């Protein structure tokens, strides 16, 4: 079943002076199946963050359509966008975006509390998601008391506690050391195995190697994609690096 359907999406920015048009996304078409783990790779400036913002309904596409579960995102009124995001999407950011004034547990509960849920229904969910990423012991700690990896795992919990249809992750390993990266990727794999659909934008080959499919973006277009099929993580890693090398060399020629 198709969860996310992206068709012919274009995004054109007009610079403030001179009216030069920059095409950030040219013609993007792809779809994400229910329960899929998709990684999007590309160089800086390739348009991958723009794509994620468009998917996240933070930014509107200039043209094309994006449907989540058959619902056209660009049709949602501005007033309901926030609610839509809160109910259907979960976000994980590169810089964690945890609130310093909340303990990790409260940070995780934040979306549910803001949605008006009672503590009695929140508490069991909190325990459940904390187990996925192994931070049960850290729930009473504050963000400044834990490591970056632990913060990011808490951020993942915050994203999944609302049971969103789709998790959008923007360079989630960008600010982490390699050990933390591995822990976090394990956490992602864990939640993916529980049936969660994930779209992750990343630079990191190691991160992308865990995904079920990798999309490569270059100059605002989908350039290539790799399906995992039966490949192991190592084989996947190798294949992705090869593709990146190719991408880079061709980019040099152009």
């Amino acid at each position, binding site marked *: 079943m198709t969860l996310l359907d992206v068709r012919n999406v274009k995004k054109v920015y007009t610079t403030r002076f001179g009216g030069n048009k920059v095409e950030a996304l040219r013609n993007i078409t792809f779809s994400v199946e229910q329960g899929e783990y998709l990684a999007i790779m590309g160089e800086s400036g390739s348009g991958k963050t723009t794509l994620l913002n468009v998917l996240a309904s933070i930014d509107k596409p200039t043209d094309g359509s994006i449907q989540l579960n058959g619902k056209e995102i660009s049709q949602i009124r501005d007033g309901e966008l926030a609610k839509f995001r809160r109910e259907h999407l979960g*976000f994980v950011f590169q810089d964690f975006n945890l609130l*310093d*004034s909340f303990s990790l547990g409260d940070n995780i509960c934040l979306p549910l509390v803001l949605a008006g849920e009672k503590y009695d229904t929140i508490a069991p969910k909190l325990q459940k998601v904390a187990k996925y990423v192994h931070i049960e012991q850290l729930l009473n700690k504050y963000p400044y008391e834990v490591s970056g990896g632990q913060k990011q795992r808490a951020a993942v919990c915050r994203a999944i506690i609302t049971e969103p249809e789709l998790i959008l992750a923007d360079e989630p390993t960008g600010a982490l050391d390699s050990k933390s990266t591995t822990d976090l990727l394990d956490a992602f794999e864990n939640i993916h195995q529980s049936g969660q659909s994930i779209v992750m934008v990343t630079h990191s080959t190691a991160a992308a190697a865990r995904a079920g499919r990798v999309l490569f973006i270059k100059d605002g277009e989908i350039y290539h994609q790799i399906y995992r099929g039966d490949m192991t993580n190592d084989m996947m890693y190798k294949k992705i690096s090869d593709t990146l090398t190719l991408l880079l060399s061709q980019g040099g020629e152009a």
Partner: protein
Amino acid sequence: MKRGLYFKLAFTNIRKNRNAFFPFLLSAIVMVAMFYMLLSIAGQSDGLYYGAEYMSQILGFGVWVAGIISVIIIFYTNSFLMKQRTRELGLYNVLGMEKKHIAKVITWEITIVAIGGVVVGLILGIIFSRLLFLVLIRMIGLEAKFDFFVSPHAVTITVLVFAVVFAAAVLQNLFKAAWLKPVDLMRETNAGEREPKAKWLFAFLGVIALGIGYEIAITTKNPLNVMGLFFVAVILVIIGTYFLFVAGSIVLLKMLKKNRKFYYHKTHFVTVSGMMYRMKQNAMGLASICILVTMVIVVLSTTVSLYVGIDDEHRYRYPKDVSVKVNCEGKTLQESEETAKQLKDVTEELAQKRDVSIKSIETYFDYEVVLLRSEGNNYQSEEDDDDYTANDILAFGVMLLPEYNEMTGGSLTQGGDVPLLLTNEEAEIDGDSMEVDGVKIRFQNEGAIDEKLTNNLYPAAVLLLSDYNEMAELCQKLSERIERNRGTLSPQFCQKYNFDLDGKWEDKEAYGKQIKKFLKKKGIENICLVEDYYSSWQESIGLYASVLFIGIFIGSLFLVATVLIIYYKQISEGYGDQRNFQIMSKIGLANREISHIINSQIRMVFLLPIIMAVMHICFAFPIIKNIMSMLNLTNTKLFLGCTAGTVLVFLVIYMLVYKITSRIYYQIVGRR
């Protein structure tokens, strides 16, 4: 060339940071203008009229207070500005500017603000000082023409004072900049935030201090130590306020947080945890706002009611338009009656000359002495260095019963052969006899003194005798004993002749000024005292008007301080909250919901100090009323009205400040 560079850099900095610098400049202007105005008005008002030196003194005192407040405000603002900009300055340092260059830039910045503040402030001060002076003159009831006036003396002092203050501010900044390493400069504003600990002990001490302060304010009636206790209460309340804001607020928030039903709620969730950090950073600021607000309201309400109630106060001091007191020791009743007749004739004669008429004459024999209780009903005459409490004092008076009845419209009669004794609420004299310096006086206790004759501040008693000779004899005996025991001048047995005047104000004033000389000229002997309502009116109104004037000035300065603290608090909180609200909007909180949360948070922070201040005012009311009655303002309704009015006006101003500053807060928070 180089010099120009630093100046330019400083100027650009000010423009770029105008959100922070503009209020600094504005407050500098206001403070300079006010300081100059007070100084110049104090200089001009000396010699305005007879008794104007009081006014000049009070205004001079106001100059001091204004100066001190200005210094505090400038230092507060300056250190806030520096704190906000440590990152920016750190960046300069990292980018290769040496500390001495940074120092030059900082110095230029403050210099620009100082020069702008002093120049504009002086211009405004010069323009408005004359205007305000005219207002003051009007308040006193004098006439004056509007003309332009610059006081070189006031200009010099103002420039000198503010030059020194700003120079000190520059030093403060240089010191701070020199002390910090670039890393610290870069780090200071985003130092890690830790959840504050609940300080139960301090919260508890705060409650205790506040409780004792309130208790003193409510229960103190004793006029002798009311001033001293008032200050004790003020200090306790200030301590209590700071402790409660700093520690109590966090204890309360922790308790709210523990209550899961309350805490995990759409708006409470963000508000409670946000408030916890906010209180950690801003509790001192909020407590200061609370104290300042309380002070503004107290200063304004008391001075306004003193001025508005001037008729009451002056009348309280001079119940009759003219009061003449003649010593009648050793005189027979006949001789005294003769004197009374003479007084009547002479006062009437002057009345005709001055075109006024005399009415409601009141004449009686009177003996008054202040006594101290030694034990039980035994009293001694007062001596200055005695250590006593107000309850041991007794204002003891002797009068004739028929005259007392006539004055009060009562109909007391003497039951047996002992005189009647009347006391007020404060006096505790039981039994049927008392001793005064060894003279035994028997009496029959007959209840309360008529309200007209006592102020109920000190214990008082009046002994009512029925016969002139009896009174003369008793008074002589008392005077002899007092003189012998104490060696002091004894009180006098005398005759009072009081009356009111009818006619034009100027005529009555002229009468009041001439009556004393006229009586002497006409050969009335043994005059102890001549007082009149009119000749001292000018002095009284001058006094109260300048008190109000100072009250408004100092009140305004406190207000400036309050507004500044609020403003800078909003800015710093805005920057602090910016990130939090961005995060919340990223994880799916609509702008509308964010503003809802911001609103409830800001409102709570805003209302806390003023609610607390109003509570302080309510509890302080009894003791301030007490102090006011010592200043002859006994009209509680008037004082209550003025206090309520001041509170209302202040609330309106406060709300305006809230609206304006929260808009700036929203701008900062909403910035992406």
